């Protein structure tokens, strides 16, 4: 029997009259590389934020290896690595300082922190920028230092919101390698994206989220059913607006 590393149960979030997430259930099997797909505004970030303890759900909860994120946040957050957005990082620290303080705040021993931080900075190609303030990093470098923060404590589960956004192809390849290695050695990854190519190349499992609910979920092959993933995605996301006579003035 496969244990679930991550479970979202009945997550609901309303902002005023608008329902952003209308009951999301998702089981992420341990050892899977899970892609959460969805068009802009589908509720991907909202769902993941609720699932990692950043946004209080109106209903439902999430479990990290059996630990309730909202009942027992400390235990859940110990097993969880999350890619923080820039607002959640102490960007007035240098890359190395940020990793060091993240480790200290997680209660890790000093020598372990410095060994791992040095290794992570080297692998992610940030060694030269270790003494630069994170606030002066480029968008792609911020993604990478965020990933380093998420990996530092060797979590069992990685939750990444748009990890490949704004990352150059070389860095993207590095990140892919790191994540592949992590999954091969027993870790579980769930990430959100709307780039089909990345998802098809990396993921073992896929879910498509649209209008605040999970439309399709399963292994990559189950979901595709022999068709291109993009076709399935466009279909589930409600199709495209055909461009006819509009925008004739645009010349």
């Amino acid at each position, binding site marked *: 029997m496969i244990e679930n590393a991550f479970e979202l149960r009945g997550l609901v*979030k309303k*902002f*005023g*009259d*608008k329902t*952003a997430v209308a009951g999301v259930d998702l089981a992420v099997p341990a050892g899977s590389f899970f892609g959460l797909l969805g068009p802009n505004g589908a509720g991907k*970030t*909202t769902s993941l*934020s609720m699932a*990692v*303890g*950043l*946004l*209080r759900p109106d209903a439902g909860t999430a479990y990290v290896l059996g630990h309730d994120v909202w009942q027992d*946040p*400390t*235990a*859940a*957050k*110990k097993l*969880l690595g*999350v890619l*923080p957005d*820039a*607002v*959640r*990082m*102490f960007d*007035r*620290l*240098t890359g190395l*300082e940020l990793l060091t*303080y*993240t480790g*200290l*705040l*997680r*209660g890790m021993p000093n020598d372990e922190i410095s060994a791992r931080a040095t290794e992570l900075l080297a692998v992610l190609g940030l060694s030269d920028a270790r003494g630069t*303030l994170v*606030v*002066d990093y480029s*968008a792609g470098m911020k993604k990478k230092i965020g990933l380093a923060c998420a990996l530092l404590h060797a979590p069992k589960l990685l939750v990444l919101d748009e990890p490949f956004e704004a990352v150059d192809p070389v860095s993207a390849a590095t990140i892919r390698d790191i994540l592949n290695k992590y999954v091969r050695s027993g870790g579980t990854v769930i990430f959100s994206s709307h780039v089909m190519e990345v998802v098809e190349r990396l993921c073992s499992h896929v879910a498509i989220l649209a209008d605040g609910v999970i439309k399709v979920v399963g292994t990559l092959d189950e979901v595709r059913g022999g068709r291109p993933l993009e076709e399935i995605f466009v279909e589930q996301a409600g199709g495209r607006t055909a461009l006819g006579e509009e925008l004739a003035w645009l010349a």
Partner: protein
Amino acid sequence: MIRVFLGLKLRILRNGFKGKTGRVVAFVFSAIMGLLLAAAGFAMFAATSQLSHGVGKGVVAMLGTFIVIGWIVMPVAMFGVDETVDPARFALLPIPKRSLLSGLLAAAFLGVPAIATFLATAGLILAGALVDGVVGALTAAIGVVLGTLLCVVGSRAVTSGFAAALRSRRSRDLALIGVTLLFTMIGPMISLGSNSMAAGNVEAVREALRAAGWSPLAAPYTAFYDFADGRPLLGVLKLAGSLVVLVLMLVWWDRSIESAMIGAVGGVQAGKQDNGKVLAVLGRTPKTVYGAIVAADMRGWWRDPRRRATLLSMVAASAAMPIALGVGPAKSPIAFGATWVGVFLALSAGNQFGFGGASYSQHIFAGVPGRTELRGRAAGLALIAVPALTVIVPALGALTGQYGNIAGALGTAYASFGVAAGMMSILSVYAAYALPESSNPFAMNSGGGCMKGLVNIAAMLATLVLAAPMALLAWWAGSSAWSVVVIPVSVAYGVGAVLIGTLIGGDALNRRAPELLAAVTPSR
């Protein structure tokens, strides 16, 4: 864990100084000022031991009340709160709430104001020793620690509480009422105290100070006198009472920290629809570049939590100031109070480009002329401020019973608003600064507070001097028939000031648009 938090704050502060000479100078300056004030405070508090117990206790009660109120009100009103160690950034870490709270609290103490307050009030320990030996020193020391904690926790609780309130639009009005109440309460208190002292009404002062000595505001500081006077139970009661208030403040702070931590995500996505009823008038602004800027500026004051917070606290401060000056036996002419109201309302525009941040680039792309830009913004603010003045000033006149002087005072208020708006048009181009990307509308970048305060105070003084002729005119006219003439003259004076200010500022803006954009863009 506390050591980690302290180290983190120190490190961030130090990194902020790297290669920023201006910041270092500002910090050194504020540190020296803080130390001088602390030394003066220490001497003052220690010297109270040389007074008779009754008088000494009264003086300590008064000073203590000022300190605690200052701590709670100032950040909301003017300076904002140092968000170097922003709670939102700990949301993903497995830190138990208790450790987080104590860590944030410890970090909050690391700063010039907290340390200066502690050092200044520590003079009471010496006073306690002189008054009552070891017991006095000990009880005073407990009081000093409790008092400092109350100041720091109170200011954190109030600012993050208001921040949480302002984040949700539903409770916005509640926050407005809260801020206004705070201000209107201290205003009369200060003026009552000073006025009755001036009038030699010792008994009233004594009564007021006895009440203050009991309130949590000064109770921790005065407790040692009760031990010295052979009423230990009373002293214990005061200390215990302060402790209870402290715990309540901690609970409140704790709650709002949670909202700051997990509210940040929601704040961005809460794409609520503005029903637009209040802003319906905007549909009628002229369909020109100027009209668009007026409309956009008014919407900004209404919708952006940071601008709303700034404007609301300025409204509250503007109402409190003249009340403080005008209530009590020694009334000052209401025209002078009205000058404050006008100036304060315009002060909110001192960093008007900072609110929008990098979005100003849209105006650069569109090639908006500098004068149009500034005049549109001034008009947008005026459309809010002038009605507010028209309500506040007559209300103040009625409150202080100076009915005859209302017309002159109203004129003065319009003139001073115009002068201040003109001044801010220039200031906002030359002294713009980026606001931190935080969900807390009171947040500010560490180290910049002192400089920001100095520039604002200088601009405020200049404005008061420039607006003085109209205040003098109103004062001269008094309640005579001439006071009606003051209004058109003052309005012309104010409009003229705006035109001149936007002329100078607008030309500067045309030259400095890229520099301005760079100054207001938060470094990402």
